[in-house]
């Protein structure tokens, strides 16, 4: 029961983070900031939701010692968590870089110099 409750809480938290990511995707002005919102919020929310369901699967403490099929499921769910944690940031990074290569300009506050561009050109 306690695991189920905890799991539910994590899932709700994940939904809240995903809502944040969605909002960011909707409202942010340029590609980079949208990517930032999407990348972080998306990864975190996915992790939280999957962990939440994993906790729900783990009905009580005795599952640890007896219920081998359940433990297998939990392990696989943890593997999903690990892989999302591995792949999602990678693709975010790759895309960010590709955007930079492609020449997508970040929105810079008026009056501020575009430090990033200068950096790369200097390099």
């Amino acid at each position, binding site marked *: 029961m306690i695991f189920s409750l905890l799991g539910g809480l994590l899932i709700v938290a994940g939904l809240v983070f995903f809502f944040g990511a*969605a909002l960011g995707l909707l409202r942010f002005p340029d*590609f980079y900031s*949208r990517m930032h919102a999407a990348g972080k919020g*998306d990864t975190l929310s*996915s992790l939280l939701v999957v962990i939440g369901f994993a906790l729900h699967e783990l009905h009580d403490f005795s599952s640890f010692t007896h219920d081998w099929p359940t433990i297998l499921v939990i392990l696989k769910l943890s593997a*999903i968590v690990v892989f999302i944690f591995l792949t999602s940031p990678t693709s975010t990074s790759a895309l960010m870089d*590709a955007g930079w290569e*492609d020449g*997508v300009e970040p929105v810079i506050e008026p009056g501020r110099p575009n430090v990033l561009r200068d950096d790369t050109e200097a390099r």
Partner: protein
Amino acid sequence: MSFESFAIGVGVALLVLMLPAIYRIVAGPTALDRIVAVNIIGTKTAVLLVVIGVVFGRVEMFVDFALAYALLNFTGSIAAARYLHRAKQAHAKTTAPPTTGKPAEP
């Protein structure tokens, strides 16, 4: 409220929260915005598969291909990123698209 209907609710909520991503696909000024949205929907698909498994009460079956999804769904994004790199290289090399049958070798 059973956990099953809670899971259905979570599933529908995830789908509805995909709407901004779909808006980004429609509106997204650049191709990259669209790819970002694809990335998000891809990750969420893996999560939704788990959710559907919970609703069916047979997570042990669904978790397999949620796992496959988690492993594979960055292939598309990486391919797109690679494409942008390659296209830039080809562009830097020659402004016209290659028509002579020679590949765009780096």
